[in-house]
């Protein structure tokens, strides 16, 4: 067992105990929501796990590294940032995918850019955002988010 796993489970247990001492009924309801969410997120999680297996089994690290590794430079970061901006998937399943890419040749910057644009820039949800918040805010938010995602990614590449 590594410390991360212990930390995450202790954190959840701590929250649960704290909640339970405050309000029993609310906590029971929370656990019900948790069980439901678990089974809702399970299929995408299993799908991404299969995809990761196939990806690492068939695509050699040298190929991944060529497209989004250190040698791909800024183009690689830009490419995967665009991919992240367009794709629409739950953030939770993007982390194991990002982790597997990092292990098999992708650069820190590329992985950081992918996660950041994936979560912050929503091409698929843009029409809804425009409708609720207006064109100006929605376009500025998504556009600037894309730029800062790349800046964050480049800084991460330097410091890590």
């Amino acid at each position: 067992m590594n410390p991360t796993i212990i930390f995450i489970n202790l954190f959840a247990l701590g929250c649960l105990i704290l909640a339970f001492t405050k309000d029993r009924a609310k906590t029971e309801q929370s656990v019900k929501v948790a069980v439901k969410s678990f089974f809702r997120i399970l299929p995408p999680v299993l799908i991404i796990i299969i995809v990761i297996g196939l990806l690492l089994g068939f695509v050699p690290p040298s190929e991944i590294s060529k497209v989004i590794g250190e040698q791909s430079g800024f183009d690689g970061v830009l490419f995967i940032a665009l991919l992240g901006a367009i794709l629409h998937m739950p953030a939770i399943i993007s982390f194991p995918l990002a982790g597997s890419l990092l292990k098999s040749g992708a650069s820190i910057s590329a992985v950081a850019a992918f996660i950041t644009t994936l979560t912050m820039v929503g091409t698929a949800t843009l029409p809804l955002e425009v409708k609720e918040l207006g064109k100006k805010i929605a376009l500025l938010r998504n556009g600037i988010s894309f730029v800062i995602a790349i800046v964050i990614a480049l800084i991460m590449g330097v410091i890590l």
Partner: protein
Amino acid sequence: MIRDYILLGATLIVAATILLIFPDRVDIVTTTSWDYFLEMMVILPAVMVVMGLFTVWVSKETVVKYLGKTSGIKGIFLAILFGTLPTGPLYVAFPMASSLIKKGARISNIVIFLSAWACIKIPQELVELQFLGPKFMVSRLVLTIIFVAIMGVFIEWMIGLSDKKNSSKSTGGENGASI
């Protein structure tokens, strides 16, 4: 939800077919997938519990109520905090942001709230911690908070600028008409 399970079935069939064609890859693919499966299953229930607690304890009404009337540095911190706690996809946050605008909340707070909701939610960060490690997770988190705060203030400034231009244009027109 049923559609997701059908999609999972289809993925399994496709994966099985590919592995039948390339039997030499069965070992590496199944070992890799199994490792990731274990890594996920030791944290997923905990992550879901945290998510469930936030969903029930932090209501949309509370968020809108507090965020609607706070500004300045305190507003920025509150916007980040409230963005990290509730759960659900980003499109759930849009109507909340929209009602915040109607309540007269600062644009900066709304933008920061939306961005925090999108990318620095606590259950999400737990999964990032597991798969990308503490160094990666913490540095991305800190950088994101800094840049998101700057972006919020910048967008508010831009919107203010264009509103001022519009209003000065219209008052100029009125003045001209009155003369």
